[in-house]
């Protein structure tokens, strides 16, 4: 079955420090990978995607993600965290059979001042 896993329920980081939110995937064929962010009482917002090309993908709000085929990972990163980055982050993968998006369970990022 095609799936995506986010091994951490919560990530805590101090403001100004680098952050990483982990995601691993399992798909047939070439993966299409995505990150979405959900702020409190708001819908999901698209951050970035990897379909093909450079392994390092840059997205909104200074976030980037690194595609690693050998480790089947697509970790979300930011060099310097902001308190306003505190939110729920979802990794997603395209199901290559149905073309649907399959979301992970989410990782809550808490950035402390």
């Amino acid at each position, binding site marked *: 079955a095609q799936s995506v896993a986010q091994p951490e329920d919560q990530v805590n980081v101090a403001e100004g420090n680098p952050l990483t939110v982990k995601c691993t995937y399992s798909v047939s064929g070439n993966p299409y990978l995505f990150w979405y962010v959900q702020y409190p009482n708001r819908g999901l917002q698209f951050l970035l995607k990897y379909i093909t090309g450079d392994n390092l993908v840059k997205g909104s709000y200074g976030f980037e993600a690194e595609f690693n085929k050998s480790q089947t990972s697509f970790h979300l990163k930011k060099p310097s965290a902001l308190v306003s980055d505190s939110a729920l982050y*979802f990794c997603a993968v395209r199901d290559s059979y149905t073309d649907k998006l399959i979301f992970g369970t989410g990782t809550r990022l808490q950035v402390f001042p």
Partner: protein
Amino acid sequence: EAGVAQSPRYKIIEKRQSVAFWCNPISGHATLYWYQQILGQGPKLLIQFQNNGVVDDSQLPKDRFSAERLKGVDSTLKIQPAKLEDSAVYLCASSLAGTPYEQYFGPGTRLTVT
């Protein structure tokens, strides 16, 4: 550009009652999605429309859930009768036909069934 609109934002009903949610997608977005997000889980696709036709409703519990997209624009999702396990946030999303993976989500409707 206006985003995806949903109403109501919150709804509390008793089990066995019925409820309806409304969604207005971004203008020009041909594809519309309804997701169910249970607390602690990622969104799960319930139904996908392309214009006013259903593309995928394989995970829609059709004995109690129904959805329509009149004239290929607005959409409504209905639950009748509701069960306790239907308590969740119902998200509507839309996308351009050519970029189905760049989905724009509405704020969601939080449903509590008591």
